[in-house]
């Protein structure tokens, strides 16, 4: 397989919160151009793992390597963005007082230093990118609305759009379809598929139908550790997974 190049690899990472180990000694790999789901019971450490990757949470030990040469553990959160990792948070965290369009403008991949920001002018290409993204997410009619006034689903999409405009190599999504209606879920799923064409997507999700439908590869976490990893089918047939997560079928 030509395409299974390692995008991200965590090496023996441990995360502690005042004595409690949210992640212990985790080895984990993400390969490129896949939709990679991360599932597991509450408290298994999924969100914490995303936190570590994007620099929100410090590891107690171990390292996380991106594209085989960047150790993320040493980078500040905003610099991790610069090398191509973008994250969508669990609750939609968009900027409520800015318009949809402005939200997208500040998300654009560009020099985000002080001076560059002061002098920034939007280019034709960027405008085109934004328009495209507005179409992709169906927010084109709302582009001049204050983001705070969007519906829940629209906010989620806006955030996804913001993540994508950064043109990341690796996209981290934390429960992107939580609170969405069935139609919205479908739409989101299609969007994710579209996204994954030329980048890697790592998603934390609970909705099993959704996982089944869109996953290329699934990782199951449990108790801060990796339980197993594989295609949806492999996962479904793994007894350990049934034990901790999916519920036992009677013998």
């Amino acid at each position, binding site marked *: 397989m030509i395409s299974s190049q390692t995008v991200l690899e965590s090496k023996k990472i441990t995360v502690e*919160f*005042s004595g409690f180990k*949210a992640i212990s000694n985790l080895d984990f790999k993400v390969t490129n151009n896949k939709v990679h789901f991360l599932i597991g019971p509450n408290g298994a450490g999924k969100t914490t793992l995303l936190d570590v990757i994007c620099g*929100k*949470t410090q590891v107690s030990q171990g390292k996380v390597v991106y594209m085989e040469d960047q150790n993320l553990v040493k980078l500040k959160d905003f610099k991790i963005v610069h090398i191509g990792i973008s994250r969508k948070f669990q609750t939609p965290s968009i900027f409520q007082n800015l318009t949809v369009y402005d939200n997208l403008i500040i998300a654009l991949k560009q020099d985000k230093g002080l001076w560059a920001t002061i002098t920034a002018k939007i280019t034709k290409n960027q405008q085109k990118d934004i328009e495209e993204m507005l179409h992709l997410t169906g927010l084109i009619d709302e582009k001049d609305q204050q983001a705070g006034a969007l519906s829940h689903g629209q906010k989620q999409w806006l955030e996804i759009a913001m993540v994508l405009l950064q043109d990341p190599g690796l996209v981290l999504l934390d429960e992107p379809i939580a609170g969405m209606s069935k139609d919205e879920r479908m739409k989101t799923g299609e969007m994710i598929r579209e996204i994954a064409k030329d980048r890697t997507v790592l998603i934390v999700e609970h909705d099993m139908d959704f996982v089944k439908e869109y996953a290329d590869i699934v990782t199951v976490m449990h108790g801060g550790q990796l339980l197993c990893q594989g295609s949806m089918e492999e996962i479904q047939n793994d007894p350990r997974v049934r034990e901790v997560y999916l519920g036992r079928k009677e013998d």
Partner: protein
Amino acid sequence: MSGTILTLFNGLSLGSILLLIALGLAVTFGLMKVINMAHGELIMIGAYVTYVIQSLFLKYVPESFFDLYFLLSIPIAFLIAAGFGILLEVSLIRFLYKRPLDSLLATYGVGLMLQQLARSIFGAPNVGVQSPGFLNGGLTIGNLVLPYSRIFILSLSILCLVAIFLYFYRTANGRRVRAVMQNRQMAECLGVQTRRVDLGTFAIGSGFAGIAGCALTLLGPIGPTIGTYYIIDAFMVVVVGGVGALIGAVVGAFGIGFFNTIFEFFTSATIGKVLVFMLIIAFLQWRPSGLVSSRSRALDE
């Protein structure tokens, strides 16, 4: 040698004053995250209560009992300041629990009004309070004199600390407060009436400001603006100590007290003050969230 002991004592004494004025704040700011700029004015209220009680004693109570006024003032100052605290919480603070900076500004406005109120009632000039007889003079050790009033304040602040400690760690109310501060929602789900807890906690924090005001009449002026002399120091103590931990306030108070005394002894009061501030900034570089701070998941965001 005696110089060293005296400096130590002075540091301890200044620390105890700082502790006393910061204790209430450690509760309202430290535990409840409310920035009450009117805390200084609650101190002022405590001081005026002492003055009023003293005046009443002079008028109505035989002279031989005069000294008792001070002992009586302490609980009354506590109650009246707590009463003002309740008023403040009900009318204002409860709207501002999630807006700490706004609570700062609004309570500053309240402080202004309370100052003017004091001026309208008691007049602009300072009023005098006669110290009770048993606090006159001092403990003489060799050629050292340790003023009784200082020793009294030191003991009072320790007493208050112990009282606060016992309240929070040994009573049902204190337990409720801690439960609410740790997990408001869960406490509510277990039947704790969080509104009442908030109100009570704020009242207690305010009440301790009243006690501080009462004690300060032994050392300083009693006038409408005295609160402004202490408020910044009090906040500094809590910030240095670390918000949310009583023990932090203790360390913060005595730390600032000692450094201030030592700096002042070797330089001047002005330079001493400046040096202490520099030290605080430097210190916060090292520990941005104060001396005693707990890193946990909940505090991260």
